[in-house]
């Protein structure tokens, strides 16, 4: 692709100014996209039109200030079209929206290029603008042939405009560097833990010291409040993510020729920023899956006695310390027979096995699995649902499928509220302490000698409730000397990796502790079997174990 190097004036050589421009423009573009979709639904939505106009207008101004000519030019041309629509001489059609969306996408790419410039120092290469400009200009010219303008568009009163502006500037907020925020949340987490250590310190012997008890309780309350506030600062409503899906649904509808209505419920549900960011991909794949595989074509739907327009519902809600997310459609549902056939073809299921429906539904998460008969631009390559599963596991969440043939399918996601703190079991191996995340622990026990068996005198197995589970000795994995080589004197933790259960051998259980997960730093990021570090009660660092990394192939 031919790319034009961007001309910059000296103001643009100040990375801070450019960064501000990028941040601000991105905000505007997000609003623009939301409003464009609103306008697409309801072409007479004057407020949406105004909001879009304002967004492009601001970007144009800012770009002009920095001498970013090509950005300014695109924003200007779009503004011209929007202005025509504003004063009633042009009626917005889906085709217009397509072009404006393309313009918006181009601007987003340019911002990304600028961002790279700040980091690498190389001049940004922006995509070709000529075609885009031409198509935007064409829109502006064609207005004479358009239908007369609906009354609502021309009957704009200035009062409406002021009201909107007020609403936009109404909330008092400041911008804070996310790194500072992350650090704050981190430290507050440490404070909560330190507070609880003080409270439970045996030396304090709280009995008979009512004042100390009262003061400590007060401290605990304040700490909890501070923690809640700090956490909430990093929480953002899921709205933006949901709205991104509106765009995806719109694009998919145009590509597949299906009619889809997207219903969003619980947009105001707040969750940790890092979770929202990591949910974008899985959600996209699930929505795509619902539309491409779940929903039928309008003709088929009518034949089946359904409304020609399919319905995809995204629902978010809080429940007992978790976030519940649902992606449901009213399409044909998963077909167990078809899944079974495909799964056998791919060798994912034994030839003569008779899996339950639930087991069959789970095969769609296998890498490379696809029921699409033909490869389309939308799906069929079999990447997608496996990404969903992987990502959800990474977020320490769970995914379930409920499907009724002919009625539709629903994906249920259950995610933790935050990724920053986990409940952990403190275990000891060879004098070192490790943290085993509780969510990964199924059960713990000390085996009896006759439950143990070996394979080829090398691999060890243990019989747990009728199931033979492989044994992984943590000290061997990590090259340490255990208290005892005798398994009957060690502790076995039943955990799970890649969907298979196994037993992890440690010396002893020391206790249970809430810990703040910390990275070991860039240089020690890829240590296998270690998910991160945590500050323990005695101020030492304890490593957090990662069952997925401990099981399976030994480290090379």
């Amino acid at each position, binding site marked *: 692709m031919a790319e034009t190097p961007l001309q910059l004036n000296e103001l643009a050589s100040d990375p801070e100014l450019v960064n501000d421009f990028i941040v601000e423009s991105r905000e505007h573009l997000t609003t623009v996209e939301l409003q464009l979709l609103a306008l697409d639904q309801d072409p007479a939505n004057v407020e949406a039109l105004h909001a879009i106009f304002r967004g492009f207008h601001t970007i144009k101004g800012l770009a002009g200030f920095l001498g970013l000519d090509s950005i300014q030019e695109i924003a200007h041309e779009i503004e011209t079209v929007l202005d025509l629509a504003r004063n009633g001489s042009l009626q917005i059609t889906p085709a217009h929206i397509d072009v404006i969306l393309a313009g918006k996408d181009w601007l987003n790419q340019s911002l990304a290029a600028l961002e790279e410039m700040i*980091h690498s120092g190389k001049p940004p290469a922006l995509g070709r603008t000529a075609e885009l400009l031409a198509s935007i200009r064409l829109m502006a010219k064609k207005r004479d042939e358009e239908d007369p303008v609906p009354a609502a568009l021309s009957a704009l009163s200035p009062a409406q405009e002021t009201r909107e502006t007020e609403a936009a500037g109404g909330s008092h907020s400041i911008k804070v560097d996310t790194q500072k925020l992350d650090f704050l949340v*981190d*430290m507050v987490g*440490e404070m909560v833990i330190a507070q609880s250590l003080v409270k439970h310190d045996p030396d304090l012997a709280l009995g008979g010291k009512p004042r100390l008890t009262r003061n400590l309780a007060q401290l605990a309350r304040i700490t909890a409040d501070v923690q809640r506030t700090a956490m909430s600062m990093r929480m953002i409503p899921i709205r933006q993510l949901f709205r991104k899906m509106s765009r995806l649904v719109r694009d998919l509808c145009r590509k597949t020729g299906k009619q889809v209505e997207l219903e969003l419920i619980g947009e105001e549900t707040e969750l940790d920023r890092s979770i929202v960011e990591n949910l974008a991909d899985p959600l996209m794949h699930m929505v795509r899956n619902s539309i491409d595989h779940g929903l039928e074509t309008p003709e088929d739907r009518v034949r089946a006695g359904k409304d020609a327009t399919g319905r995809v519902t995204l629902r978010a809600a809080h429940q007992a310390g978790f976030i519940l997310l649902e992606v449901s459609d009213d399409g044909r549902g998963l077909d167990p027979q078809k899944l079974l056939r495909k799964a056998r073809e791919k060798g994912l299921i034994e030839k003569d096995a008779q899996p339950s429906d639930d087991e069959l539904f789970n095969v769609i998460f296998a*890498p490379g699995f696809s029921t699409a008969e033909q490869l389309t631009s939308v799906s069929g390559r079999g*990447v997608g649902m*496996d*990404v969903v599963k*992987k990502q959800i596991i990474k977020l320490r969440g769970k995914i379930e499928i409920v499907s009724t043939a002919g009625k539709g399918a629903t994906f249920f996601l259950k995610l933790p509220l935050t990724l920053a703190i986990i409940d952990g079991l403190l275990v000891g191996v060879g004098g*070192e302490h490790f943290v085993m995340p509780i969510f990964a622990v199924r059960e713990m026990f000390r085996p009896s000698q006759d439950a143990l068996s070996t394979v080829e005198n090398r691999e060890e197995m243990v019989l747990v409730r009728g199931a033979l589970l492989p044994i992984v000795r943590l000290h061997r*994995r*990590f*090259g*340490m000397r255990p208290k005892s080589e005798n398994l009957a004197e060690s502790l076995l933790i039943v955990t799970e990796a890649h969907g298979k259960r196994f037993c992890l051998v440690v010396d002893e259980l020391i206790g249970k502790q809430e810990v703040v997960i*910390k*990275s*070991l*730093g*860039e*240089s*020690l990021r*890829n*240590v*296998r*079997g*270690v998910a*991160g*570090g*945590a*500050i323990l009660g005695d*101020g*030492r*660092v*304890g*490593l957090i174990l990662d069952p*997925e990394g401990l099981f*399976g*192939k030994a*480290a*090379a």
Partner: protein
Amino acid sequence: MPSTSVTVSENAARTDPRAGKYLTFALGKEEFAIPVLRVREIMGVQEITRVPQTPAHVKGVINLRGKVIPVVDLRLKFGMAEREYTARTCIIVVQTEQDGAKMLTGVVVDEVSEVLNMQAGDIEDTPEFGRGVATPYLVGMAKIKGKVKILLDINLVMSAQDLHGLTRCTDDAIA
């Protein structure tokens, strides 16, 4: 301590980018120096949590006021013999940059000496050691009071690849 006037050091800074204030420390009989601006703090040796499956010179991680940072033993990193830690052993916390990202690393050294103001005239290029001795992180030598100090580019010493040597292809790389 050398008593140089500010103007002199400024002039020196203009003539040689390597001139400036250095923290010097000892490893065995050798004296090394790193730019003082890279140093965040100096602490005694504290309990280090070992991280499995890392090279020997990575001693583990420590708790730096709520932050977890890796600790590297510079003796082992430079292929010198290991030595028992003593009361003089120090961890120098340095800030380095890796692909634009700032990170803190603890460096274990035998003994921290002093902060020296090095002028352009004190600094010489690293001599050629002949065949195959790659010394990318040695930026120069300084002779102060008859003693040689080896100037280190701590950024290169800590270069991530070298540090962990374990960036493996994770088999769960997303397709």
